Each structure stands twice: as structure tokens, then as C-alpha cells.
């Protein structure tokens, strides 16, 4: 009799508990023998997923994909798995990896239960970036490396939630489902990597010396060091954080959060973005349309830096060592300390010289800066004494 009662209780407990549980699932696990040479091409095509990319230690290519579900029913897990496909192929020197999901899977995803809804989106201080506080390279690196995975506290700070009866409610582990993903691609150091991403979060660990061709729309790209002069990176609406760029061409559009620790030997084409650069090193040029740029520091051997812009706003902090500067403008305003200097629009839309600094010949010469601006605003920050020549009256 007692045995029977025990059996019934166990059955009931199993019935209840099997519906809601936490489960880790291996989605894909594969290693491929490939030639570690520049001739080998790896194509990673990702949709709605998060991938970590790093160097492999054994010259093989590895793909490890794992998902962890909390508060998901068996049926919901099956549904998520059904929405996800990972296919790989190896043909000659080309590896193709397609990882696609019709559902958005970030490193950590929160899915609200039915009994809680968003009442309000709490507005953040969007103008905070406009403050012109100087940042050192090290503080920029700290910002780049700041963990960006959202917590439940973050959600409660971003949204105001309420239950079905209209009572304010906080999001907690009782009323959300949590989906964690860890998809890792490890590649040998010399292969050429092509990434095509759509609403994808890519994180690159360590120094990436591989030649890379990246084309991403939506999502984020976070990297340590991207080191290859042949790199071609195209980003549209991609949150971009990188410790150091060493070579390559970058096309950045519609990105409200670009943080670069340092940049050298690189060309940037940007538009409608907000971009902060911790340190400008050798041979950098930027062509911009309607972005806000923060140029915090220059290395003492940056050689030359060119900025060509239209409808841009530039926060420019002078180099600490000797340098040359020329600013040409058309319909452009330059705020220098307490003074405002403006180059009014001309009928022929010609640019005039707004600011000129010749190297002083004192100490180390670090390089020449040239700004070529239309309909732009410059905020120049310096403690240097200025001499103003009012001339060129139109």
C-alpha cells in the first residue's frame, strides 16, 4: 500500500516537474582538418545568433554550439531547436558554415511570461554623450571591455513592467524564460575569414591576425585586436567595440555606439553614427557624413590624420606633442574654448581656411592633421593660447 502511494507521488512530481526545467543541449559539435594557409577560406553565414570567434590551438577548425534553456517546456525547446539550422560544408580549400535561426538568440535571451507586460520604456539620457569630457586611452579600453550581457536588473532599469491586473511588477526568474547560447568557431591563424551576419552578435577573442571580410547588418561586433591590412569590414546598425584596429578599411553606417581603443593604418567611411576613438595612431583617415566623432588622443607618431566631413560634429582634443593643423570649412562652426569661429556658406560652396597651426618645432613632431568640412561643427579643446586673425571678410 505504502509502495503504491510512493509510486503515485513520484509519478505526480515527475508530471509537474517535467514541464518546467533547465536543460543544456549540444546543438552542433564538429572539427575539420583544413590547411592553415591564406588560400583557405572560411565562410561564416549567421542569422539571429551569437558567435564567438577565436584562434584554434591545433590548426583545425572547430565549431561548438550549445544552448541552455531555463523555464522552457519540452515543446518550447523543440520549437526553438526547429527554428535553428546549422550546416557545414568542406569543398577543396573552402569551408562554409551556415548558422541560421528564425528566432533571435543572443548570448543571453529573456522571454517574458504571459502574466507580465511592458508598461513603459524608461528613457535614458541620450544627450549624455554630447558632454565633452576628455577620455584617456585606458578609460576607453575599459569601456570597450565592459561586459555588455544584460541582466534582469538591467531589464528592470530599462522597462517598467506590470501584471495583467495593471500592478507594477519586476521581472524575476519566476516570470521569464532564459535562453543562453554559446556558439564558438575556432579557426587556424592564417585562413581567410568571411563573415556575413544579419542581426548577429560576434565576439572575437584575442588578436585576430587573419584576413577578414565582414559584412554585418544589425547586431554587434566586439573584438580585441583586428590586425590585417587587407581587412574589409562593412557594418550597418552594428554596435562596434574594438580595443585596437591595425589596418584595413571600415565602412560604418547607422551605428550609435562605436568605441575604438586605438586605430592605425586604416580608412574609415562613416555615416549617421556616433564614434569615439581613444587614440589615433599612424595613417588614419575618415570620410564622414552626419556623424558625431570624438577624437580623444593622438599618438606621438601619428604622421598624418585626415578628416573629410559633411554635416558632422567633431569633438577634437589637440595632440599633446607638436603637430600641424589645417581646418578648411564651408558653412562650418568651430568652437575653440570660449570662442566661436564660423566659416559662412559661400555661393560657390568653396571651403575657406578656418584654422591653421604650423608645427612649433619644439619637442617631437607627431604629425599633420587636416580637416575638410562642410556644414559641420567642431568643438576644439585645448589649453593653448590662441591668436585670432579676423580677415577674409566676404
Amino acid at each position, binding site marked *: 500500500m505504502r509502495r*503504491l*502511494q510512493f509510486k*503515485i507521488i513520484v*509519478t*505526480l512530481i515527475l*508530471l*509537474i516537474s517535467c514541464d*518546467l526545467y533547465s536543460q543544456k543541449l549540444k546543438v552542433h559539435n564538429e572539427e575539420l582538418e583544413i590547411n592553415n594557409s591564406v588560400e583557405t577560406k572560411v565562410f561564416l553565414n549567421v542569422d*539571429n545568433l551569437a558567435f564567438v570567434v577565436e584562434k584554434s590551438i591545433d590548426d583545425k577548425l572547430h565549431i561548438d554550439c550549445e544552448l541552455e534553456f531555463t523555464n522552457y*517546456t519540452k515543446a518550447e525547446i523543440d520549437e526553438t531547436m526547429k527554428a535553428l539550422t546549422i550546416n557545414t560544408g568542406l569543398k577543396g580549400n573552402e569551408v562554409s558554415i551556415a548558422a541560421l535561426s528564425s*528566432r*533571435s538568440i*543572443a548570448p543571453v535571451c*529573456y*522571454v*517574458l*511570461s*504571459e*502574466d507580465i507586460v*511592458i*508598461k513603459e*520604456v524608461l528613457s535614458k539620457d*541620450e544627450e549624455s554623450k554630447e558632454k565633452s569630457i576628455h577620455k584617456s586611452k585606458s578609460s576607453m579600453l575599459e569601456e570597450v571591455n565592459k561586459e555588455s550581457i544584460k541582466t534582469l536588473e538591467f*531589464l528592470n532599469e*530599462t522597462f517598467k513592467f506590470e501584471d495583467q491586473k495593471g500592478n507594477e511588477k519586476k521581472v524575476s526568474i519566476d*516570470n*521569464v*524564460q532564459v535562453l543562453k547560447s554559446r556558439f564558438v568557431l575556432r579557426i587556424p591563424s592564417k585562413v581567410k575569414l568571411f563573415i556575413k551576419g544579419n*542581426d548577429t552578435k560576434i565576439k572575437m577573442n584575442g588578436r585576430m591576425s587573419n584576413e577578414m571580410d565582414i559584412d554585418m547588418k*544589425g547586431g554587434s561586433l566586439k573584438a580585441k585586436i583586428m590586425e590585417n591590412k587587407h581587412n574589409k569590414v562593412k557594418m550597418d*546598425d552594428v554596435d562596434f567595440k574594438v580595443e585596437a584596429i591595425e589596418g584595413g578599411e571600415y565602412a560604418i553606417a*547607422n551605428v*550609435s555606439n562605436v568605441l575604438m581603443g586605438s586605430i592605425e593604418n586604416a580608412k574609415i567611411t562613416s555615416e549617421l553614427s556616433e564614434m569615439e576613438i581613444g587614440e589615433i595612431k599612424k595613417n588614419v583617415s575618415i570620410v564622414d*557624413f*552626419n556623424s*558625431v566623432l570624438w577624437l580623444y588622443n593622438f599618438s606621438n607618431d601619428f604622421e598624418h590624420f585626415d578628416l573629410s566631413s559633411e*554635416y558632422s*560634429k567633431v569633438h577634437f582634443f589637440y595632440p599633446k606633442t607638436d603637430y600641424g593643423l589645417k581646418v578648411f570649412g564651408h558653412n562650418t*562652426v*568651430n568652437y575653440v574654448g570660449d*570662442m566661436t*569661429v*564660423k*566659416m*559662412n556658406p559661400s555661393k560657390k560652396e568653396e571651403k*575657406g*581656411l*578656418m*584654422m*591653421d*597651426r604650423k608645427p612649433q618645432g619644439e619637442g617631437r613632431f607627431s604629425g599633420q592633421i587636416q580637416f575638410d568640412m562642410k*556644414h559641420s*561643427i567642431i568643438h576644439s579643446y585645448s589649453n593653448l593660447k590662441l*591668436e585670432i*586673425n*579676423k*580677415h*577674409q*571678410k*566676404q
Partner: protein
Amino acid sequence: MKKDIRDLFDGNEGSDLELPKGHRQEFLEKLKKSKSRKSKRQGYVKIYRVAAVLIVFLSIGMVVFNPFYKDESEVVSKSPIELQIKNIEKGYLISIGNEWKSFLKLTKDEKLIERYERKLESLDAEYREILKVFKNDSNNISVIESLIENLKTRLKLLKNIQAHIKLLNEKREENETITI
């Protein structure tokens, strides 16, 4: 070998046998025992019935009270989160529309207007794409954030460019060159 069944009773074998003494008592005792076995079995049936009822109630409870359960009818009609997003979207779109009108009043730069028009169209197309994902995954916070971020971006772009143009349009009389 065939045998007529009637032959079996021909000899009337055993017809003169007498029943043993106390057979009635013995029969009653056997009957009693069988009854108690039956009542034990009935007890088990009762427990099974209770368990079955409990399972039914628990299953109903799980369906009704499980916050992650989605009813088919709810999927067809708009869920509270979808209605909420619709409201947020409506508010933003009104503000975006107003900002667009004031932007057009502020500038005559056709190139700039065209570029912004294209930009807003592409953001709108993106929004529709995210909406498709949202329809299948409406409670996913990342998707909700993407939707709101898209609307916020449009509004912010329009506000920022207007502030920029206003600043440039401020009248200043002279052109100057600064020599440092």
C-alpha cells in the same frame, strides 16, 4: 474415441456421498475471506481514482496557472505585449512624423533631405523585418528592444540633424581664421 456424455451419469457414482460435517461453516468462512480480498481491491481502485482526479486537476492547474503556457486562441488574437508594442509604436510614429515635418521646414538642402528620406525608409523596412520575428517570438526582450531601438533611432536622427542645422543657421557676421 467417442463417448456419449449421458453415459457418464449412468452409474450414479457419488450420488450416495454425504456432505462433510461443518461444510456450511467452512463455506461461510471462505465467502468472508473472498469478500475482504474484494474490499482490498476496491480500496486500490479508490486510490487510483483519487490519483486520477489529482492528475486531472494538476494538469488543468498547470495549463491555467503556468505563466509560460500559450493558449491557441491567444496566439490568434493580439497578446498584451503586442498591444503594448503597438501603443509604443503609435506614440513614436506620431513624434517621428512631426519631427520630419519640422525638418523639411528647416532645410532646403535637397541632397540632405533625400539622404534622410532614404535612411528613414531603410529603418522602416528594417522595422518590418523585426516585426516578422516579433510575431513568432513576441515575448523575447531582445526583439522588443530592437523594435524600440529602431523607433528611437529615427526620432533621434531627426532631432539631432535639426539641432545641427539650427546651430549652423545662427547668424555670424565674419569669417575668421584662427592661427595657433
